[in-house]
């Protein structure tokens, strides 16, 4: 055996891949949190099939978890892994296209038998040759299954527990490889399996043996040393997923505005976690209804809004389609509501667990009549907190539905999050009917902002009838008057446009003296910024303008575009934001770069496209 060498790395990408029952998500999450606690920046990307348990050993059931950790600024979960762990040949096959030269590939030799090759659809007994895996890849064969069995031999565990613990052997090995102290990992396991002492003791034993296996055998590979990040602002941090951050943003907004939080939801991948997170916080007075369908998800919520709550609903593309009539009612009744759409691959059921940005036009236009709503999009997992908070603020201060777009990539992925304090967050002032406003009715509004006053049922003196019929501008009574309808349509539009008065300008990142501006929105921010930074580092000029506020657009949008010769809009659809920009901003020739594969951009494909534009 070679002597152990230690290599210093700024950033490393690790991917765990196996059957959907192999525990890859847990392994990946534990390793990510461990790295974050030790001071690394992290960004994670769980990528799993929609089948809960596809046939074992087949490519359809491969589940992966990737983490990017580093001592430098991390924007994305990384493109291709430096270290790949595959639990079977199917996982090898699925990951083959992303295996890069000189990377480390650890595989479970116990699952690399003839029958395993057949299940994964290999034609020969040499999958590495069949997939043309580069010879520069360091193959580390480890009999994970049998070593796990040996580790637990004679301790009285049933076979199922034994087999399910092999992911911990892999985790132990990876901890050794990255010089991670194992006691911290054990601490995580203790929290996770607090109520399952059996499972805990099995996992701890296997984890420890996996770590010692690497340590004792001095596997002939270099270990990785990733130092603490020096680039983060000092303070207290945690690792948070986008969906959890979204839920916490709503909780913070409810307390800041002094309102009860209400969520009407319905289970839908990949948005369910927002509901499941919020339902934990009955201690904070959060009310959650798991409704009978998507429509009831938003309509119970709209009822709660009418009754005076901070109301929200969580969904994904197909659910947003079902909610569109109710969003129209919220537009017409001018009631505050936050609609969270964690986008997935479509159309129809599409690719439920994969990421896309294909709901933008649905969010902007998917309703009958002239029906403007505020549309925003979060950029990173941790960002979801801020934008869920701001979506609530805008809904309550402008009496309007706000659609917040997230996606499977940032919703399920995690990043570092600097813990906020409530007092540091922006104020939220719901637009209540004021005492002293005599004769206020359902359409009475602030003449400057055009925002109507919110009278809460139970308040004496402000009883009113709201509804989906057009109302008279002055009296609030139902009206089919021609000119009144025009005035009301214009008023509702103007009100939403007025939101641009409180949102920040779009900022230029990268080199603002460049001729080419890259434009993106929502969950692609990390990849775009990473690619633009790399191009800048190579000595070329390129700038980035990333949008989180889409309707209305930031006020400086047209000015920013005007500073560049070319504007290239990059998005995970066939060109939805670019078509919106073409309708809103004149005098700019927009180029576009699109991908619709259920996967995020890779930094390398973006760089190569930008380089081709810069030639």
């Amino acid at each position, binding site marked *: 055996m070679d002597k152990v060498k230690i290599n210093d790395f700024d950033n490393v990408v690790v991917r765990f891949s196996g059957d959907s029952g192999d525990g890859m998500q847990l392994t990946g999450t534990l390793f990510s949190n461990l790295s974050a606690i030790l001071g690394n920046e992290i960004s994670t990307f769980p990528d799993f099939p929609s089948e809960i348990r596809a046939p074992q050993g087949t490519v359809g059931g491969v589940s992966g978890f990737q983490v990017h950790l580093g001592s430098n600024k991390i924007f994305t979960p990384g493109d291709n892994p430096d270290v790949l762990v595959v639990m079977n040949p199917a996982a090898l096959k699925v990951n083959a296209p992303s295996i890069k030269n000189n990377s480390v590939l650890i595989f479970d030799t116990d699952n690399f038998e003839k029958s395993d090759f057949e299940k994964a659809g290999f034609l020969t007994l040499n999958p590495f040759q069949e997939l043309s895996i580069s010879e520069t890849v360091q193959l580390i064969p480890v009999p994970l299954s049998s070593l796990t069995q040996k580790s637990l031999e004679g301790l009285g565990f049933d076979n199922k527990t034994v087999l399910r613990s092999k992911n911990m052997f892999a985790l132990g090995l990876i901890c050794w490889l990255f010089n991670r102290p194992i006691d911290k990992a054990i601490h995580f396991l203790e929290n996770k399996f607090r109520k399952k002492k059996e499972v805990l003791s099995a996992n701890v034993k296997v984890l420890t043996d996996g770590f010692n296996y690497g340590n004792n055998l001095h596997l002939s590979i270099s270990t990785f040393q990733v130092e603490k990040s020096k680039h983060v602002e000092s303070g207290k*941090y945690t690792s948070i997923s986008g969906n959890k951050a979204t839920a916490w943003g709503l909780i913070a907004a409810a307390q800041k505005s002094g309102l009860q939080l209400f969520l009407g939801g319905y289970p839908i991948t990949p948005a369910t976690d927002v509901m499941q997170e919020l339902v934990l916080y009955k201690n904070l007075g959060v009310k959650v209804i798991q409704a009978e369908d998507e429509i009831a998800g938003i309509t*119970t919520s709209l009822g709660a809004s009418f009754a005076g709550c901070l109301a929200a609903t969580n969904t994904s593309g197909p659910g947003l389609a079902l909610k569109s009539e109710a969003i129209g009612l919220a537009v017409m009744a001018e009631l505050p509501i936050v609609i969270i759409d964690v986008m997935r691959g479509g159309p129809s059921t599409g690719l439920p667990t994969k990421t896309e940005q294909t709901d933008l036009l649905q969010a902007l236009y998917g309703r009958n009549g002239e029906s403007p709503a505020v549309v925003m999009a979060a950029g990173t997992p941790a960002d979801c907190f801020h934008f869920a908070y701001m979506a609530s603020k805008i809904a309550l201060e402008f009496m309007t539905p706000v659609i917040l777009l997230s996606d499977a990539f940032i919703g399920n992925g995690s990043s570092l999050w600097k813990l906020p304090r409530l007092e540091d967050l922006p104020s939220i002032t719901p637009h209540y009917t004021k005492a002293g406003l005599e004769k206020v009715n359902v359409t009475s509004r602030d003449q400057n902002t055009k925002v109507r006053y919110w009278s809460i049922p139970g308040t004496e003196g402000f009883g009113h009838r709201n509804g989906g019929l057009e109302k008279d501008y002055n009296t609030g009574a139902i009206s089919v008057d021609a000119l009144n309808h025009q005035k009301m349509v214009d008023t509702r539009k103007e009100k939403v446009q007025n939101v641009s008065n409180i949102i920040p300008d779009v900022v230029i990142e990268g080199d603002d003296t460049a001729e080419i501006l890259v434009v993106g929105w929502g969950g692609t921010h990390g990849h775009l910024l990473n690619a633009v930074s790399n191009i800048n580092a190579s000595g070329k000029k390129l700038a980035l303008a990333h949008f989180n506020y889409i309707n209305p657009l930031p006020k400086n949008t047209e000015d920013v575009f005007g500073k560049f010769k070319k504007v290239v809009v990059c998005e995970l659809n066939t060109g939805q934001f670019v078509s919106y920009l073409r309708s809103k901003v004149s005098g700019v020739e927009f180029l576009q770069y699109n991908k619709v594969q259920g996967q995020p951009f890779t930094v390398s494909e973006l760089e190569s496209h930008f380089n081709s534009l810069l030639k």
Partner: protein
Amino acid sequence: METTNIQYTAKDFKSDQYVRWCPGCGDHAVLNSLQKVLADLAIPPHQTAIISGIGCSSRLPYYVTSYGFHTIHGRGAAIATGVKVANPKLSVWQITGDGDCLAIGGNHFIHSVRRNVDINVLLFNNQIYGLTKGQFSPTTKKGFVTKSSPFGTVERPFRPAELAFGARGTFFARFLDVDLKVAQSVMLAAAKHKGTSVIESLVNCIIFNNGAHGWLAEKENRPDRTIVLEHGKPMIFGKERNKGLVLDGMTLKVVTIGEDGVTESDILVHDAHAQDSTIQLKLAMMEGPEMPIAMGVIREVQEETYDAAMEQQILNEQANSKIKTFDDLIASCEQWEM
């Protein structure tokens, strides 16, 4: 719901809006009865929220002085659920019709009943779509000719009671639009019941389905063709008050007191509070002309309401948790200095 000592009259609940239903429509009578009941309940107008969907009857919130929300087709039950759960102190009424409640809104209807949210569902059943000018509804009798069934419907109708019972309803009552006395007593009982109170109001659509309930509504024959059920009272009806209901094996049967040795003591006594709904359902499903149509409160049982159960869970968690604020939540999560 907080009642007060203020004496209200029906007038206190009449809004300034002109009532736009057709002259002779059964909805007028139900509106008047409701306004009387709201006054009798002594709940202040601002503590009442009236939620409706779409259809002729769903215009009702505009005509009542209270908080009202005229929403979208079929979704009234879900919206009313949200209102009640958000603020359980409000007295919440859902106004709906046979199309709104049982066709497009069927799913929300059965689920609000199943959850037993404390709302009062006033279902106007005229067996027709009125506002879209005369198409058959889920309660239209099979074979009936309408604009969308020129050769007669081939559909079997729903019976609202059966749906409410099937969804494990805790309260079901029925009244006829023209019978103000029963209408008011039933609505009052519904408002006082904790849970989803389903009230089927048989109303006449004078334009598109005139006389659908006419054979019941005729004042002269009404006592023979309907029976007004009261908890704890024998099931006696008829002009002469000499007809009654008995159980013959598993079947309800009409008998005449004084004939074949039948005495008043043989007549079934109505038990609206029985958890076992077998007889209540049989009563609700009686059809003429052989049997009288049951009116009044047919089922009224106590079970925990959804909104109260949720409140209680929140109170329990709040009492037992150290996390009281957002900052506490932040402090509780796994964290590290960087």
